[in-house]
C-alpha cells in the first residue's frame, strides 16, 4: 500500500538518478554546480511526493551552505567538499528507499536483462536497511538502560568502548538476519535456474521516457555549468 502520493515512475529512473548523482557529486566542482545538482535531485524528490523529506534536506543544505560562508576555511571546506555532496547523494538514495517496493525493483531490473548477480544484492540492500535501522534503535536503547548510553560525553570519553559496544551487536544481527533471510529465500527458489516471471508487471511508459529525457537534460545543464567560469559567491 503506497503511503505517499507523488508521481509514480519507473524505479530504473530512480536507480539511474542515484548512479549519476553519486558519480557527479564528487567528480564535478562544488559551488553553483553542486547547488544545481542538489536542485535536480530535490526536484525529483518533490515529484515523488516526498514533501517533508525534501524540505528537511533543502533546509539542511541551505543552512550548511550559509555556515560554510562564515566558518574558517578548514571547517567550511569539510562542508563544501564533503557534507553537501553526501547530502545530495543521500537524498537521491532516499527517493529510491521511500518510494520503491522491492518486488517492483527486482521485476524492472530483470526485465532489463540485468544479471541476477546484480539484481539480488541491490534488492537485499534495499530490504536490509529498515531492519538495520530498527536494530540500531534497539541497541541504542539497550545501551542506555545498561548505563553505557551513546550520550555525547560518553562517546567522547570512551570512544573505543562505545564503538565496540555498538558495532558488534549490529554486525551479529546483520549476520543472523542475512542467514535467515537467505535460507528463507533459498527454500522459495530464489536461485532456481529458470526464467523468472513477475506478479507486478512493469513497463516503461511514455511518461517514464519523457521524465528520463528531462532528467538527462537537467544533468547536462549541471555538467555544462561546471565548465563555466561562474562562481556562486
Amino acid at each position: 500500500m503506497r503511503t505517499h502520493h507523488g508521481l509514480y515512475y519507473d524505479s530504473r529512473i530512480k536507480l539511474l538518478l542515484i548512479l549519476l548523482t553519486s558519480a557527479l557529486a564528487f567528480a564535478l566542482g562544488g559551488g553553483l554546480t553542486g547547488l544545481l545538482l542538489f536542485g535536480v535531485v530535490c526536484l525529483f524528490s518533490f515529484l515523488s511526493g516526498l514533501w517533508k523529506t525534501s524540505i528537511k534536506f533543502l533546509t539542511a543544505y541551505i543552512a550548511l551552505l550559509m555556515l560554510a560562508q562564515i566558518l574558517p576555511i578548514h571547517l567550511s571546506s569539510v562542508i563544501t567538499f564533503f557534507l553537501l555532496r553526501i547530502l545530495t547523494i543521500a537524498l537521491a538514495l532516499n527517493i529510491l528507499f521511500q518510494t520503491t517496493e522491492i518486488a517492483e525493483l527486482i521485476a524492472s531490473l530483470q526485465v532489463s536483462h540485468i544479471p541476477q548477480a546484480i539484481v539480488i544484492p541491490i534488492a537485499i540492500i534495499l530490504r536490509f536497511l529498515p531492519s538495520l535501522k530498527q536494530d540500531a534503535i534497539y541497541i541504542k536503547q539497550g545501551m542506555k538502560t545498561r548505563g553505557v548510553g551513546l550520550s555525547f560525553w560518553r562517546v567522547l570519553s570512551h570512544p573505543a568502548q562505545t564503538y565496540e559496544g555498538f558495532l558488534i551487536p549490529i554486525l551479529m544481527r546483520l549476520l543472523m538476519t542475512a542467514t535467515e533471510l537467505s535460507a528463507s529465500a533459498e527454500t522459495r527458489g530464489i536461485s532456481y535456474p529458470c526464467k523468472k516471471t513477475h506478479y507486478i508487471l512493469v513497463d516503461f511508459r511514455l511518461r517514464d521516457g519523457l521524465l528520463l529525457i528531462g532528467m538527462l537534460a537537467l544533468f547536462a545543464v549541471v555538467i555544462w555549468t561546471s565548465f563555466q567560469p561562474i562562481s556562486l559567491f
Partner: protein
Amino acid sequence: MKKQIPIISFEHTSFQYEGQIQENLRDVNLTIKSGEFLVITGQSGCGKTTLTRCINNLIPRFFEGVLSGEVIVSGRSIKESDAGEAGKEIASIFQDPRSQFFTTNSSSEVAFACENYGIPHEEIVKRVDRAFQSLDMENLKDRDIFTLSSGERQKIAFLAATTLNPQIYVLDEPSANLDIHAILQMRKILSALKAAGHTIIVSEHRLFYLYGLADRFLIMKEGRICEELTGEEMAKLSASQMRSRRLRPLNLNTIQIEKIEPIGHSEVFLQIKNMSFSHKAMPELLHSISIEAHKGETIALVGENGCGKTTFGKILSGLIRCRQGGFFIDGKNVKQRKLSDYVYFVMQEADHQLYTDSVTEELRLGNKKIPGIDEKVSRILKMLHLENFKDCHPYALSGGQKQRLTIGAAMLSEKPIIVLDEPTSGLDWNNMYAVANAVNFLRKSGKVVFIITHDLEFISLTASRTLLLKEGIIKDDLQMTGKSTFKIVKDFMMKGGE
C-alpha cells in the same frame, strides 16, 4: 491407502555442521508417511531444527557439514538435490523474525515463490487472489509487511507457502513470537492443511496448540530420537510426566498456578499517572494509563501482539518519551529523561543488549562502582548456571544462555524497577524455568518487576499480579491469588481479549 506411503525417510543419518565439534544429529532413523502430522520436540540444541533442515534440503548445500547415512524426501536423496529444487514440493516456515520475508509488500511476498519458479503472470495473479480468499484474509492484501503484527506476518508466510500447493510443510518453531490468540489462529490453518492431506512436520517447544492435531511426537535429546509417542499417548501423560521430560504442557488446562505472594511492602513505590502515547501520525496506542506498584511485586503485562506492552515498558524505562504522563518513584516526581536512572529494561532480543567480549565483563559493565562487585558477579554466574562460560564471548552462548546473561546484568543493576520484555520467547522448559527463578529472585530482593509476556506457564510461576491490556487501556488488574484469577488471565490470552 495413501497414508501408508513413506514420503520422507532417514536412514542412519548423522550430521555435523562445519566448524562444530559435535554431531548435531546422531544415527537418526525415521520414516514419515504421506499425510502424517509429526511434531519434533526436545531441549534447545537437541537437533530438532537440524532435522527440519534436512527435510527442506537446506542441509547439506546451504548449511554445510558432514552428512552420513541417507535422507530421502519425495523419492530423492538430499545429497543430490538442493533447497531450491526441493522448494517446489516442500514449503518452509520459520520463526516470525521479519527476516523470513524477502519483499516488503504482503501480496508480493505471497507471489514470491511463484515468480522464482517461473509461473506465468496471469496464473500468479490468480493464485495470489485465491490464497487470500481461501484463508479469508483479504484484509491483509497489498499491505506493508512492516506495519503488520507478528501474527499477521505468520499468516502471510502460510499464504506464501500455499501458492505452490506443496505436498510437505516444514515448520521451525512457528509460534516463538506469537501471542496465544494468534497461535490458536495458526492452529486453524494447520488443521485445514492437515485435512487437505498435506504432510506436516513441526519442530516446537510450545506444544499446546498441537494438542489433538499431531499424529505423532518425537522427543529428541543430544541429536538422537529418544522417545516416540502417538498423539493419544502424549495426551495421556500427566503434568508431572511432562515435567520430568522437560516438556512444555500439551494442554494449557494442566498449568497450575504457584502461590506467588507479594513481599508485603505496603507503601506505594511506583506511581504512573495518566500516561498516553501515540506514534507519529497514528491513533493513540496507550490511553491515559494509571497504575500503582509496590516493591516485591511481579506484575505481568499481557495483551495481543502490537497492543502497546513493549511501548509501555520502554516509556517506563525512559527509552521512549510519551506525550503526557506523570511518574512518581518513592514519593518523588521523576522527569521522563531521568526515568532510566531508576528503571532497567531487559530487551526481548538478547543480541541487542550484549556489548563486551566476555560473560564476566558483560556483568561488570556499567556496574564497576558497586562495592563487592566481583563476588556478586560470581554469585550470579552460579545462580544462572553460567560459571563454566564466564570467559566465553557472549555471542558464543546459546539463545537461552544469552537470555539468562542479560537477566544477570539486570540482577546486578541497582535500579529498583526492572522491566523484562518477553524473556521466555523461544526458550525450552529448562531455560524458561531458570528465567522464572531469576525473576523470583529479583522480586524477593525487593524490586518492582514487570514482565511483558505471552507465556502462561511463565506467568503461573512468577506473577503476583497481572494487568490485562487491550485497546490502549488496562481492562483488568488482577492479584494472582488463586485458580479463578488465573483462569481469567488464561481466557483473556486465548481469546485475544474479546
